[in-house]
């Protein structure tokens, strides 16, 4: 503990020196000894002017154009994201280095991105916000360097990086330098992965190679109607494949949150997105060295939840909404669902229990009977690995009839994709609590954070049934060719349609709805 504290202090010291030396608004020139009074005043004036220009980005008319599109400017976004007065800007006066195509005559202090750190609900975060008003937010080598600097800094301090993306793509005038810049960012995305949380909020176009940075961050959020993500835009698509497609269809928020699964959530507009992002950060630890945060909790940890008694229908084939179970269990029904519209047969997201962040994974019987398929396995696996990397306990609600059969699934590799979820649960060493609410059938039972994959505490509700497969399928194999298979079906149900077979083998901690146990374990 003491060594950790020392490390923090050291880091703090290093950071403040670093800032003072290199990035303070009063740059190094001010301390030069040879200046005369007049010279000092002139420099002061220059600094003031440059800062003023930097604050204006691409100028009034471009700011108006940005607003007309229903978008905030890069600075306004940061202003809203950070606690009042907490943003510290880096490299405000830096300028691009390109001298081709007349670029040397067009320079904007700070170039096309704003970087720095600030506080979000009192906690530090590093951020960059691409400025579409300057060269369409295009990525120059200096733009990339600025981003890399905050990413390095965030790694050093151990704090999240937030990217507000709004960029037309590479700065074509700079050629390979711009491409190199992308690669520098990609590398840092990879090196930071699992060390600090990385979040991308796509607030405008993000096309070409640029898309791979958000793709490698932990969470990619989008803004409805104003943001796009694609490798190639509609024009290129048209010329190559002769397909007619709009930007929105090709890579809009709806496409990516429902069809492709590229983005994790979409928000109504810039303001909604930034406010929700502030809220979302409250669920995450600052780095992999920090515990899952505990926020002050007003919801009694031992609250009785009679609703849980009635959610599971008596008919075992009847669907119900697992989300009801989830919101009734977490503090104040406050559940931040990730990818709510993609692979809806699995629910993932963050909630709190007695104030501490927990990751929730649940099969959703309402959609495709809650089966595991390629999309839901990949969705679940990535989430479980995130929780594992960042010390967030995982609570799994199981009601799974099995993996989805069919050529569509097999040919597309359900085996290797399903394995990802299995691997993720087995690998995870954070506290794992599993509640079998109803079905746990076949291999899918094993996958869903079973006792056998180092589940810490596994519960079965009285409605639980764990078996290799459903009664009909099982009896048709066991009693193949025999007449009157249906009578064996009843026998099978009697035997396996309850929590006892697993309970007598010591698989569960307890049968029954004992939320009390769940909350104590997680807090």
């Amino acid at each position: 503990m003491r060594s950790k504290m020392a490390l923090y202090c050291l880091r703090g010291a290093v950071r403040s020196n670093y800032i003072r030396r290199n990035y303070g608004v009063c740059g190094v020139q001010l301390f030069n000894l040879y200046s005369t009074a007049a010279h000092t005043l002139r420099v002061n004036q220059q600094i003031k002017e440059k800062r003023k220009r930097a604050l204006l980005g691409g100028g009034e008319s471009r700011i108006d154009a940005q607003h007309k599109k229903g978008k905030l400017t890069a600075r306004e976004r940061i202003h809203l994201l950070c606690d009042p007065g907490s943003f510290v800007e880096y490299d405000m006066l830096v300028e691009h280095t390109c001298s081709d195509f007349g670029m040397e005559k067009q320079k904007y202090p700070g170039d096309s991105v704003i970087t720095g750190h600030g506080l979000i609900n009192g906690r530090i975060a590093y951020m960059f916000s691409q400025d579409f008003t300057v060269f369409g937010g295009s990525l120059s080598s200096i733009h990339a360097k600025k981003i890399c600097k905050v990413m390095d800094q965030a790694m050093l301090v151990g704090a999240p990086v937030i990217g507000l993306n709004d960029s037309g793509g590479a700065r074509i005038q700079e050629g390979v330098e711009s491409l190199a810049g992308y690669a520098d960012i990609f590398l840092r995305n990879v090196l930071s992965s699992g060390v600090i949380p990385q979040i991308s909020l796509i607030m405008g176009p993000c096309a070409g190679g640029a898309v791979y940075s958000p793709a490698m961050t932990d969470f990619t959020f989008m803004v409805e109607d104003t943001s796009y993500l694609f490798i190639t835009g509609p024009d290129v698509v048209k010329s190559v494949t002769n397909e007619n497609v709009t930007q929105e269809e090709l890579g809009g928020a709806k496409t990516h949150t429902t069809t492709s699964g590229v983005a994790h959530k979409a928000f109504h507009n810039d303001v909604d997105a930034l406010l929700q992002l502030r809220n979302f950060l409250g669920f995450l630890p600052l780095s992999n060295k920090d515990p899952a945060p505990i926020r002050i909790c007003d919801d009694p940890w031992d609250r009785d939840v009679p609703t849980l008694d009635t959610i599971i229908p008596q008919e075992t084939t009847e669907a119900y909404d697992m989300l009801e179970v989830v919101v009734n269990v977490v503090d104040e029904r406050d559940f931040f669902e990730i990818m709510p519209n993609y692979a809806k047969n699995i629910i993932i997201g963050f909630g709190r229990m007695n104030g501490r962040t927990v990751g929730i994974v649940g099969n959703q019987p309402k959609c495709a009977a809650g089966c595991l398929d390629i999309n839901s396995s990949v969705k679940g696996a990535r989430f479980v690995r995130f929780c594992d990397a960042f010390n967030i306990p995982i609570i799994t609600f199981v009601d799974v009839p099995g993996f989805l059969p069919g050529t569509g699934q097999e040919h597309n590799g359900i085996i290797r994709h399903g394995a990802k979820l299995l691997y993720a649960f087995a690998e995870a060493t954070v506290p794992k609590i599993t509640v079998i609410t109803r079905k746990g059938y076949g291999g899918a039972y094993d996958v869903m954070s079973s006792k056998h994959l180092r589940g810490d505490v596994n519960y079965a509700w009285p409605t639980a049934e764990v078996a290799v497969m459903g009664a009909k399928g099982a009896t048709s194999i066991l009693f193949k060719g025999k007449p009157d298979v249906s009578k064996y079906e009843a026998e099978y149900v009697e035997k396996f349609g309850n929590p006892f077979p697993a309970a007598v083998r010591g698989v569960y901690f307890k049968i029954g709805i004992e939320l009390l146990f769940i909350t104590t374990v997680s807090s």
Partner: protein
Amino acid sequence: MKAETFGSPKTRPGEQWYKLVEDASEKKRHVRMADEAVCIGPAATKDSYLNIDHIMLAVTKTGSQAVHPGYGFLSENAVFVEKLEAAGISFIGPSVEAINGMGDKLESKRLAQAAGVNTIPGFDGIVNDADHCVQIAREISYPVMIKASAGGGGKGMRIARNDDDARDGFRLASQEAASSFGDDRILVEKFIDKPRHIEIQVLGDKHGNAVYLNERECSIQRRNQKVIEEAPSVFLNEGTRKAMGEQAVSLCKRLGYYSAGTVEFLVDSEQKFYFLEMNTRLQVEHPVTEYITGVDLVHQMIRIAKGHPLLLTQKDIPIKGWAIESRVYSEDPYKNFGLPSIGRLYKYIEPLHVPNVRCDSGIDEGSEISIYYDPMICKLVCYGNTRNDAINTSLEALDSYVIRGVTHNIPLLRDILTETNFIEGNISTNYLSEVYPDGFKGRQLNSTDKQHILAIAACVFSKMDMRSYTFLNERPSTAKRKEPAEWTLVISLFDEELQCDVKKVGNKFHVHMKTDTLSVEDHINLSSPLIQTNINGKPIVMQLVSKDASGKLQIVYQGTTFTIFVLSDKASKFLKMMPEKPTVDVSKVVLSPMPGMVKSVSCEVGDTMAEGQEVCIIEAMKMQNSLVAGASGKVKAVHVKAGDTVGEDDVLIEFE
């Protein structure tokens, strides 16, 4: 054994209560309160509560000696009583003859006339078809009431003011009658305008004694179903009360009626009263009578069934204080004063902490309100020494009644109880349509109310903001960390916007709006559904329904839920720059107003429909609702067919 909830049965020594249960209500409260529960079939009532064979099986299986039928379902079914009697089991209710005599509206009218009871002019016979219905209606002269001969409780009843109404009414009423009672006979009678519905509670024993237990005023109704009942009535004078009571008793004596019963009257503005019908069972609203007379009606029914003579005489029956029953329904009062709503009650707290409050309910936290039954959640009965006391108690109880998960009618109940006409006792069965001619729009706020709601919203927001800074296990950061104590907020309610400054000072929030500063005590718990705090030292009760990170709050004030947006001034400034999202045009579609089952579809793709023409019928909670085209046009698509189950706001039919 009893088949429906009438509050908590007081188990007396040696009594064992069994409870009949169908699948859908297995986990409801009445099941857990009974000593033992017996399953009688699936959720649909015709296979469970209305299935005599299933119930007889349960009765014999448990070895019960007597059956209390509750109200509704088989409580007025003579066949059931005959079967019970044949099996040697007593029925806690009246005789077969009484049920038969009063159960049929034509027969009951004849009997009432014979007993010297005033009756309404009408057609003495069965209506054959829609044309016959129109003809009779013309003879009696409009307006007329078309109702199921076997019916009761408002089901299968329609008012017709012209020939078209009469035709539609006949068709709907006979369909409803067939589905609810298995008997589609219809009758027509004169409809009395501006009537009051006042009923007399009677008790008779098997020895020829009968008494009346005064009246209940049940005029506040929507679609002929009662919403608020009270006892006594503000309207009756002692003479009328006595006259009505005596006629009711004379009917009982004439019938040889025993057990509890209710004689319903329509009373016009001159205190002239007409016999409507007699309900040969315990009524939903019986608790108000119990409150003012002190008589336990269920207890009396059991005594009478055992053959004991009544110990009460007419002079033993007082009017003591005032009782008001508000029926809390799971329905949306903004749609036609109440269209059914379904869902699971994820939070449910009855206001039993308020003195003189009784809640008779069949549900509990976690219960699911399904489409199979009446959407009644609870009978909230409040008592006071005077009518004012009873009203005030009702208000207090409704304000702290927590119901989450379904839409409910508390906004309407709460509003009626403070409405001038109601307070003055100036009511009739047309009350709702007269007081709210454009439908119920929620509580209308005065400026102080508005200020209070906004102040509470501001405090909730500030409290949430403060909490979002308080992490218990963070490493000490290099940054100076301070939770905020001052906020400049912009709050919008409806389309109004107001700037507001909040300051946390000690245990108080100082909320400055326009020229006023309110001081709100910080008793706000963000997890609690109730907000009970003081504004400028005055106690106030509100409810916090939901809150989210985008600043949307839902707060219940005096029954009505208000949606309020609270944002910091900078977020609000930025939000104004955001473009409005286009809304979906719903004028070209017919949406299901509630969850239910499609009974019939009366249009096809390509049909040209006139505005107001019926396109389909949705049945839910045993009520049929005819949906009409919102504008004239050609049908583009029909998404449902008869028998489909639909959810609220599902698109049923699209127009070109």
